[in-house]
């Protein structure tokens, strides 16, 4: 199901926002792999929700605004976007780096959201300075990256089989991911001191086989958010919504009730 994708003009940036389905608002922030709103799990969710999924500037061929330097720029842009869309009691769901963005937004204000869902999310530093909490996706051999990312690594996209245009898009997405997450790598050191401000029900969903950001990381992250709960989906890696869409949608539906 192709969504309607209006461009929303905000101060300093234009954002593509996929919208589809009807029902309670589900504000969905994608991860570093790129937009996910056209995937089967999102279609399924659109049967029960109005899915509202912005494309982070730099992804899917959209330009990176000249003044953008890091995650904070994305977060402030999305504060404006949430106002422009007049979100009201939305469920905010973020995947991976989108989970980080969602967490930053939630500690700023939960006025427009009713619940928060973080999926294999980055954003905090759990271990010590010599612990590699999140695999260095920018310096890991492609085969190992596939093994860390997927429960079934055969699902990883194979550059040799991709059309040039798709491969270029993937490379552009990587640039944007680098911009938002480079340093401090995949986290904001200040976040743990702010997570107490999250006062909406929060669910963390994790793929049991995620080797990029492990379930142990998820459990530690979960412990930092007041009242948060965590569900681990078996036979899924960093993208449980792709590898186990039915289980994933089931957990979202029951949490949303």
């Amino acid at each position, binding site marked *: 199901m192709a969504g309607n994708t209006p461009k929303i003009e905000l101060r300093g940036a234009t954002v593509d926002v996929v919208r589809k389905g009807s029902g309670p608002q589900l504000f969905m922030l994608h991860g570093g792999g790129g937009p996910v709103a056209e995937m089967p799990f999102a279609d399924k969710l659109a049967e029960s929700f109005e899915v509202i999924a912005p494309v982070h500037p730099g992804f899917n061929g959209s330009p990176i605004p000249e003044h953008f330097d890091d995650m904070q720029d994305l977060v402030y842009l999305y504060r404006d976007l949430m106002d422009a869309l007049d979100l009201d009691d939305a469920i905010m769901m973020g995947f991976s780096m989108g989970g980080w963005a969602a967490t930053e937004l939630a500690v700023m204000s939960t006025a427009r959201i009713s619940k928060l869902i973080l999926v294999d999310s980055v954003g905090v530093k759990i271990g010590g300075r010599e612990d590699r909490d999140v695999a260095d996706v920018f*310096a890991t051999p492609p085969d190992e990256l596939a093994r860390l990312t997927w429960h079934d690594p055969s699902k990883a996209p194979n550059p040799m089989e991709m059309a040039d245009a798709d491969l270029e898009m993937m490379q552009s997405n990587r640039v944007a991911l680098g911009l938002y997450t480079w340093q401090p790598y995949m986290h904001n050191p200040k976040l743990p001191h702010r997570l107490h401000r999250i006062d909406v029900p929060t669910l963390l969903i994790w793929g049991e086989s995620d080797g990029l950001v492990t379930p142990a990381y998820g459990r530690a992250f979960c412990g930092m958010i007041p009242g948060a709960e965590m569900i681990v989906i078996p036979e899924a890696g960093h993208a449980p919504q792709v590898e186990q869409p039915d289980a994933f949608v089931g957990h979202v539906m029951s949490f949303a009730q």
Partner: protein
Amino acid sequence: MKAWFFTEDAYPQLPDQDTYRSIRVNLPNQHYDPVQGADNYHQFLDMWLMAEDLGLELMLNEHHQTATCVVPSVPIMAGILARETKTARILVLGNPLANLPRPTRTAEEMAMIDVISRGRLECGFVRGVPYEIAPANVLPYRGTERMWEAHDLIIKAWTTHDGPFNFEGRWFHSRQVNIWPRPYQQPHPPVWVTIGSAGTAVPVAEHEYVGAVFLAGYPRIRSIFDGYRAGYLAKHGGDAPIDRLAYCALVYVADDEEEAKAGGETLLWYMTSNKVPVEYSNPPGYHPPAVAAQIAKGGRGGAGIPLEATLEDQMARGNMFCGTPDQVYEQIKAFYEYSGGFGHLLMMGQAGHLTMEQTRRSMTLFSREVYPRLKELTASYDADQMKETRAALPDKDLADLGNFGVEFVR
């Protein structure tokens, strides 16, 4: 023409290439024997001193976490040479400004070398090759802009003599800039910048800096130098002097062809050793997406430098000048005319396992029998005449030569 002797100061005493994935970034330094390393450093310093004795100028550079160049701090080598040499120009090419945290430190280091050498520093600024990103931990996206901002701060630091100034840029901040010492040369040492495309050449030409091209060969040299010349003409309303352009290639000169071939093949270690996987050669935002896509596909063997490089092929590309003195002169002259002219030849005269004695023989033959003719060649340079000469040389059909050298496009 000025000729510059260059060695990357490699550590070639490595295990079999099949036993490691990358010569750069993650090769464990258990393979580096510091006793052997000390011998290497002293040998390379001796080579530079030998080159000065032969009347050559000196070039040195810096790389990180790699056996291909064990100079992670070029100011240290340049500082030694500033004291040990007496007459040669010392070209640092270059300071990797996009990857360095504090431009004022570079301004200080370079000023110090300029003073110790009594004004013999030529100061290069570079963005750095892609495999420098992991060691530097600096986002490569907008690296060129970072480099130019650092450059602006350094030039201002070099040329401000009335107390501190303030600099609050996008990337670099220093609120009390007032360097001691200031440069020996006035207003500051000559500046060089590496260029790898017509586009990157333009700002370099506008500043009237020397634009240096590495290993672009016949396939790319015209477009890059033409970009420089066009940028120069547009800004300054005249032809770019040839001393504003430099070309770097591997050079080996021998008494006979057989020796030349052996020496040239030994030099090729520079290319055949450069085993770098895609995760280090394609950091996000370094290459334009279309180039990055090709690297991701493995279309350029990961790093793009063909590990199976042959001497004939590299000579055909204009990346290697190799032969007897007469042959090397003819090869350089042909490339010089095809390119439209350049005033500096940067010679990688030593690489890999090439010995001190081989290097000495090659550079001696170069300086005695090739260099004087190159000097004559450029002394008679006339811009209009060169345009005619060049027009008579149609673009070579080089379609089969592929993308070699794209690493140096920046």
